């Protein structure tokens, strides 16, 4: 437990050292969602219709962008080797890194989503569903992402390859997440979507840290 906190603390400290880093995942989210109206046009009805999809895709992409940071820097300067030599189970260390990633890249999105929603003219009901789906979904994104980040360690062009590996895994989250918001906006029941998202989260929590730890070990061998 102490080691878990130590890893989280260390990663957050590293992020804080570059103050900008705390905000950049968030900024990226805002900028991408703002690009769409520019590309598509200012028709409010149209925008409202595509809003859930756009916001979810943007959330997905901004989580993705921060992913390479999870292990890559530590791998390159040999710190990951040192971590794996510390008397802690790798699973714990990986879990700590995932949590730190979520705090930096996931949580801010959840908090900011309402503002973006307003830009797309969503109503209050849709906004609350959106936030709830993001709250359940972004941890899954961080968890699944860690697998890709670990698998592509030390592979040049890794960050792009990683996106490629992970995006297919992200698709269920995207579909249920955006689906729930859409269902709500047309007055359908959303509990099905939510329980599926919850199930994904539990599944991911149960298995992913082990998988990622194994992948990390393979990478440093």
């Amino acid at each position, binding site marked *: 437990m102490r080691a878990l906190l130590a890893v989280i603390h260390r990663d957050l400290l590293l992020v804080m050292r*570059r*103050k*900008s*880093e705390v*905000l*950049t995942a968030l*900024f990226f989210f*805002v*900028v991408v969602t*703002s690009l769409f*109206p*520019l590309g598509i*046009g*200012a*028709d*409010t*009805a149209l*925008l409202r219709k595509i809003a859930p999809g756009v916001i979810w895709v943007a959330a997905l992409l901004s989580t993705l962008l921060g992913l390479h940071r999870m292990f890559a820097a530590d791998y390159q300067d040999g710190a990951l080797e040192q971590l794996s030599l510390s008397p802690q189970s790798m699973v714990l260390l990986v879990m700590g890194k995932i949590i730190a990633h979520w705090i930096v890249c996931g949580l801010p999105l959840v908090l900011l989503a309402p503002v973006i929603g*307003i*830009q797309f*003219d969503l109503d209050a009901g849709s906004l609350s569903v959106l936030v709830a789906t993001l709250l359940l979904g972004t941890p899954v994104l961080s968890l699944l992402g860690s697998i890709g980040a670990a698998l592509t360690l030390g592979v040049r062009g890794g960050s792009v390859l990683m996106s490629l590996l992970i995006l297919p895994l992200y698709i269920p989250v995207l579909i249920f997440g955006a689906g729930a918001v859409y269902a709500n906006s047309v007055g359908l029941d959303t509990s099905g979507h939510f329980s599926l998202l919850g199930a994904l989260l539990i599944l991911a929590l149960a298995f992913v840290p082990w998988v990622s730890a194994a992948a990390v070990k393979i990478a440093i061998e």
Partner: protein
Amino acid sequence: MINWFKLSSPSTFYPVAGKLIPIFWTLAAGFGLAGLWISFFVAPVDAVQGQGYRIIFIHVPASWMSMFIYLVMAAWAGLSLIFNTRLSAMMAQALAPVGAWMAFLSLWTGALWGKPMWGTWWVWDARLTSELILLFLYLGFMALQASIDNRRRADKAGAILALVGVVNVPIIYFSVKWWNTLHQGASVSLTKAPAMVQTMLWGMLLMALCFWMYSIAVGLMRVRAIILEREAHTDWVRQLSEVKN
């Protein structure tokens, strides 16, 4: 005749700025009080928009200042790049947050105005969009400077970014404008405010002056803090009365 070169060294500028700050605060407060009085008690109700239009008295000054400050900031940045003067880089660094706040205020008041007038908090109109992008440019400038440890490098990198931004702001503005006129959203049309009544114009002018003076005052305060931080290890800072024990 003031010796500008002498004034451009942080050590001489620091005390001068200290003396100027109260002056600008007084000016800002004076213009502000007068402006507020006009905006709430002299300016008549607007025929179309009712009392809601009074937001104009802060919205327009904030919008103007956000754009104006960017220009000033870029000019300082350019000076620092060309002449390698420390003070102008500090000026640019100090102005960025002020400008960012102005851009934020413009967006905030605009959104709060848009809801009653247009029925929505936000539309993707040219002016609004370019104001949003301006905020991003400010934030990018600040983020870039914050994430480079080496001061000299941070200054130069920031200066390049600010100058690139200056070239781009008009391009962005016109591109958004043309884009918007090509396929405009049917829901809203931006009508200009009805012909300004004389008193309204005065109120706006006074408030704009207030914002201007405020920006100068806060900018100078920030510059002083930055100077102290960066020159912490020089002799003249050690000799300062506020630092000496």
